């Protein structure tokens, strides 16, 4: 036999040389965007419904105690390095990083048809996305091994330790993106320079680099536009942000472009497929991600329409009336007190219209009320009118949507800018930003079909001048929860503000007394500021290279 006989090429796939062309690089870049939502790994998405919102006390796992039970120790702060799913974010983010590195590595061998402008445009997007993935890792695990396009299998990958601070690398990548991305893009799904600035500002905020952040925010708020050229602004009616037809609106600084009926539900927010009411309504499954009592109570407003920034909203007389313990056939009248209407765009609760489906029936849509409480999630849930168009029926459950998930939206930018302003001493500027957000809330009353308000909404603006930084901080911080609730920010904000212990103590004491079996006795301890480095990764490279987080 000749040696040719033993040369059998690989089929149906591509080799490196075929991807160094402009088309090849562009297609490789698509894969980096693709990974942002975690591709079916429900705990790897920037929606951070478990890591950000559940750990932040906005919601609990809900559903049944035995279902997806690897989340139980996460919400109870009992995970260890070997617990299931502690590596979910790690795996998802590093796949994204590997894809970004792949683009940058291919770029070093670029073909003749790739111009310098192409290189900058493509590399800047890849670096933006790489920064995003590392930021996600940094927030959850602390420092993790920094691997870029120069390190790979066979060239020292296993030797990279996690002793270096990731933030300088993240900032460098974002800075490159700020400098090399265009202000608008022909394809709306691509990030622009304004998104890079907003992201960089956010990264500064996480490091308490307030003045650098403020400088960026001033520019962004004054001049920022979306990739499709819309000047940054708030969507006038709160719920309109979450409707598929409005995707890429003026508030969408950076969103994951979700799409239904593409041939794979991995493009249709697969991380949310369990997070719908049970036994009826949209999705029909599986009763996860149930908003907490404390979170619902925080939407209580006083006679001036202002929230209880002293945190007293859980007190008797202020807490929101619930149907806990009631079957759906038992009579129930919803709370009649003052509420922020954002509650009813964020939380499904009995007696209130659930999008355009019907009035929420309470227990009939709850899988296991004693375990998860009486509430259901509402943001990013599809309407009846969106069935089949912004919703995908090709998988085991209908709970897949083509509604973009906003990773950074303009209200988030405004509220972070408010924080930066407070740190700079410009409390009134902060108040202006907060009031801008509250004005939209005021204009977002949920109406029934007959035009009446679904509940007793009362939202007021902060009319008195802010003179005390501590009070201003409290106002901004609570506003963030009300505005961005169930969007995956809360736990990270609590860490950033260093209020995590007191806030979670309060939440676990209150909710744990009601949902005793699920949350009773749970306690946040300091080591749980970080997720443990996954044990299987330490086992692979050694505990001298991959240093475990303190306490694990």
């Amino acid at each position, binding site marked *: 036999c000749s040696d040719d006989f033993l040369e059998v090429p690989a089929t149906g796939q591509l080799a490196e040389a075929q991807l160094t062309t402009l088309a090849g690089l562009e297609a490789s870049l698509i894969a980096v965007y693709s990974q942002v939502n975690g591709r079916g790994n429900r705990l790897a998405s920037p929606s951070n419904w478990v890591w950000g919102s559940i750990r932040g006390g906005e919601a609990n796992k809900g559903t049944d105690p035995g279902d997806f*039970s690897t989340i139980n120790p996460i919400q109870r702060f009992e995970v260890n390095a070997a617990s299931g799913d502690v590596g979910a974010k790690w795996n998802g983010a590093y796949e994204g990083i590997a894809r970004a590195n792949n683009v940058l590595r291919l770029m070093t061998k670029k073909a003749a048809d790739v111009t310098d402008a192409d290189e900058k445009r493509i590399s800047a997007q890849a670096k933006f996305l790489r920064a995003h993935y590392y930021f996600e890792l940094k927030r959850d695990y602390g420092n993790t091994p920094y691997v870029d396009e120069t390190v790979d299998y066979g060239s020292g*990958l296993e030797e990279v330790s996690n002793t270096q601070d990731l933030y300088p690398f993240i900032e460098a990548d974002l800075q490159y993106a700020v400098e090399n991305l265009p202000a608008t893009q022909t394809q709306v799904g691509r990030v622009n320079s304004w998104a890079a600035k907003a992201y960089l500002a956010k990264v500064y905020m996480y490091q308490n680099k307030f003045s650098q952040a403020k400088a960026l925010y001033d520019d962004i708020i004054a001049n920022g536009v979306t990739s499709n050229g819309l000047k940054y602004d708030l969507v006038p009616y709160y719920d309109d942000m979450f409707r598929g037809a409005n995707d890429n609106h003026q508030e969408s600084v950076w969103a994951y472009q979700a799409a239904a009926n593409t041939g794979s539900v991995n493009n249709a927010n697969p991380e949310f497929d369990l997070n719908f009411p049970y036994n009826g309504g949209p999705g029909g499954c599986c009763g996860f991600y149930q908003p907490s009592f404390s979170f619902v109570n925080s939407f209580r407003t006083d006679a001036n329409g202002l929230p209880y920034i002293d945190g007293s909203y859980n007190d008797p007389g202020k807490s929101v009336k619930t149907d806990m313990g009631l079957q759906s056939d038992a009579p129930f009248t919803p709370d009649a007190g003052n509420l922020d209407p954002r509650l009813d765009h964020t939380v499904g609760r009995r007696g209130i219209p659930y999008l355009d489906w019907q009035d929420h029936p309470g227990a009939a849509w709850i899988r296991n009320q004693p375990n998860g409480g009486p509430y259901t999630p509402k943001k990013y849930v599809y309407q009846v009118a969106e069935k089949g168009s912004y919703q995908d029926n090709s998988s085991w459950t209908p709970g897949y949507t083509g509604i973009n998930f906003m990773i950074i939206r303009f209200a988030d930018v405004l509220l972070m800018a408010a924080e930066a302003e407070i740190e700079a001493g410009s409390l009134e500027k902060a108040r202006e930003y907060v009031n801008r957000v509250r004005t939209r809330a005021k204009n977002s009353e949920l109406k029934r079909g007959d035009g009446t308000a679904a509940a007793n909404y009362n939202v007021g603006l902060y009319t008195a001048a802010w003179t005390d930084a501590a009070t201003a901080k409290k106002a901004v911080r609570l506003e963030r929860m009300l505005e961005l609730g169930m969007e995956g920010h809360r736990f990270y904000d609590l860490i950033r503000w260093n209020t995590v212990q007191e806030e979670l103590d309060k939440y676990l004491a209150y909710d744990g007394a009601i949902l005793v079996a699920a949350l009773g006795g749970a306690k946040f301890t300091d080591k749980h500021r970080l997720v443990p480095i996954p044990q299987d990764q330490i086992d692979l490279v050694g505990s001298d290279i991959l240093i475990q987080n303190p306490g694990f």
Partner: protein
Amino acid sequence: QKTVTGTVLDEYDVGLPGVSVLVKGTTTGTATDIDGKFSLNVPNDQAVLVFSFIGYSAVEQVVGNRSIIDVKLSPDETTLTELVVTGYTIDSRRETTGAIATVDPKDLTVIPTGNVEQALQGRVSGVTVITNGQPGTTSIIRVRGFGSFGGNEPLYVVDGVPVQSTDFLNPDDIASTTVLKDAAAASIYGARASNGVIIYTTKRGRKGNQKLRVDYNGMFGVTTPGEGLAMMNPQDFATYTWLAETNQARIDNRAPKYEHPQFGTGNTPVLPYYINVGGAAGVAGPFSAAQLEEERAKYNVDRSKGGVYQVVRAATGEGTDWYKELTRNAPLNRHSIGLNGGSETSRFFIGLGYQDQAGIMKNNNFKRISLRANSEFDVTKKFRIGENFQATYRQVLGQTGGNGGRGVSADENDILQAFRMPSIIPVYDEFGGYAGTAARGFNNPRNPIANRDGLENNRNFNANIFGNVYAEYDILEDLTFRTSIGGQYNNYYYWNYSRLQYENSENNSSFGYSEGAGFNFQWVFTNTVSYKKTFGKHAFDVILGQEALNNGSGRNIDASGQNPFSTDTDFVTISNLPVSSRQVNSGLFRGVNFASYFGRVNYTFNDKYLFSAVVRRDGSSVFGENSRYGVFPAFSAAWRMSSEPFLQSATWIDELKVRGGWGQMGNSNPVPSTNQFSLFGGNVGASSYDVGGTNSSAQIGFRRTTIGNPNTQWETAVTKNIGFDGTFFNGRLDVIFDLWQKDTKDLLFQLPIPQTAGSNATPPFVNIGQMKNAGVDLLVAVKGNLSSAFTYDLTVTGSTLKNEIVALAPGLNIITSINPSYRGIQPIRNQVGQSLSAFFGYKVEGLFRNAEDVANHATQDGAAPGRFKYEDINGDGEITPDDRTFIGSPVPDFTGGVNFTVGYKGLDLSMYLYTSIGNEIWNQSRWFTDFYQTFEGAAISERLKDAWTPENLDAEIPVVEKTANFSTSNVGNSFYVEDGSYLRLQNVTLGYTLPANLLERWRLERVRVFASANNLFTITGYSGLDPAVGGNADTTFGIDVGNYPVTSGYTFGLNLSF
């Protein structure tokens, strides 16, 4: 001195050529001619003639006053004198030096299995067969242990053609089955031999002018489903729902609050009359006839026509036995016709086979139709040509489990659903639709009967042709050249429908359809020269060969979509699916090319000392240029002690041979053909993005899918074997004994790389680690007759196995990258010093008896009375992941079989037992059935009646409660591990062969009728459905999530020859 003539006939009364006829005690002798005739001068009437022929029992005849002596030889079924087909050659067992086992062809036909390899269970020592009860399922066959982390399938060779699977074979067509176990025997297959070689040959007919012989073998019968697991009836289920609340309230230190959508809110649960009336739960009844008519008017189970409205009456009394409802007595029948004949210069065999076997679940069926046509012609005295051909149609419907049904035990399949559906739910609603968990309060099991019915119109089939053509030319009298070219072409087609569900709490949202097809083709071209010559006391047997093959190239395409305009199966095609829902995928593959040279020299001195040397050099396209070739030598020797003078006086020894061998074999099975390349791919599910913001489409991007390694080499197994073959007491006792060790090094293993490289890129297989397997193989056969009418035959096979991971990569002691996870529980760990895929987790010391017990124990998350108490292995006063330990192994220590046959005149009775000892099972199904809190509302086991309560402190079943945490249902622990040892009576057959006088009158050669019972009993301590728990792969076997049990069956049959 006088001349004696005669004819020697075989068992079919056909003249047998080449039979040695010897005057006893002399060297005078001759051999029979082509017609079996002989003529010999004998010294006197007292002379004794000895007729002997390989494979037949020797016959002695005193000449007396006869001048014509006709004898009939019958096949000698003593194992040690048989011929052994080793693929490239046919040898006498007497001359072999390696570890070789054979299986009597009729053993393959007694049990009505769909796949012939299942019949090897317990028949061959050293071969582990792990299978399940699903018809047409592929079994895990392992020869001498588990050499690697994957790709441990033996090499199958059928009529000289290597194949990946033998599922196309009809057991009635098989003439011989040989298992080559050690390197001495198998190294001639070189790089593909390290997991052993199983060689089948098919029937070929006989030469000689003879009449056509027709054999018909038929059987029909039934497989019974047996009993399911004991689940709670509706009343007990409600009572325990309340108990869970009582217990939970005590643990939470609060007052109990009883509530359930169906059972009310009182202090005692109330069973409802209706569990679902238009979505309402717990409705009293019964309705009057008029009310029912009103309800009927509202009834709707077609979701495309609006909201579902059902009326479901609660099952009463013992409730629904879902296992019983799901299963059936499954009919089977098998028919084979063999036509057998030949002329002076030709022979042929034509076999027609049909098997139709139903599974114990609905719409689960296996069917095979096969046609075999083998023939051989002598073109001249020196030149022969021949062919083997088979065409097979094979259909396996409703099979679950990956890898040809192997993975069924690890699936949450319909059998598991039967033990998750509460007994209070009936199968059907009041108006004929399916009932299910749409009735509130029962969580999310799905009605398994609806699932099975939904498979009704699904179809698939394989059609394949297989065979080879060969030519042999005798260049010299002792030198033969043989060339053979063969292959297999396989084609499959399938179409599936998925119904729009309405009866469950969690329903899908569309009617789905998928369709696909593919083909593959593999070929092999083999040329050998063999030379066999004896010079005085020196006997040589030499074979040299060259082989080239491709293990399969082909293409496939599949398409799917949802919601056609009409769901009429006559209408639904891919073209008739909405364009937006259609998905089409296809693939192409070229397989792996092998180029090989091999040779073997056997030398025998004085018929006493046997030496054998084998070497094979293989080149494979799967490896890169630098490491493409491997050389695999083996050496063995044997000493036929029984030929030594000092044993001549030991007349009880007929034959005694001591053997020993060493050799190397290779393996590249686990390695995909792309291993040497770094590759990139696009995939809508893995790497697409709606970059244009369309909300309805996604552009496909490319990411790295494979990291290549051009330096990967063969995995090598070194075997050492010593053993002996003995025949004693005039052939009444045969013993074959082997002591062996197999060390596999340079394991082909996908060494996990850090996730920092990206999880989508498959790491390459590299050569790392070592595995050790060792054991003893024993076969003891006793046979004889108490009188001429009464015969007996007892064969016992037994093998021990010790499997150990000796080394992984430097600095790496455990691998977790291949661990499966079931609902967050990871049952196994591969670690140096342990067996493959050993069970790993916390060791349950018992249950916490009371608060004091909790207080005195090491700190443990979620500890409470009645929950698991884990052993503090490292004694640090805290239960952490470091306290996990090894709690069992799925690898059996001992497997064996007993085959016992007695014959009395025309009657024959045989029994066949199989045992597997020392293996554990991870009974993951208990996660669903033995915990109330794992999907509250789904069915629970009767075992919960023995659960811990303050009054039952010594219980083994944890407290019935509603918390899922570290100390209850959330982590893998020894609660799930059970002893999987069992002894099973696999088959009892009673047969009756009609006497010769009747047959002559009817001009028949043979008529036998028989009745069999399969799997009549199983002795085991295992609490699941069946201790025979297979698995998808070497790293996931012995895990029982929803095992498809091997159950009892009864067959009747007829063997007819004329």
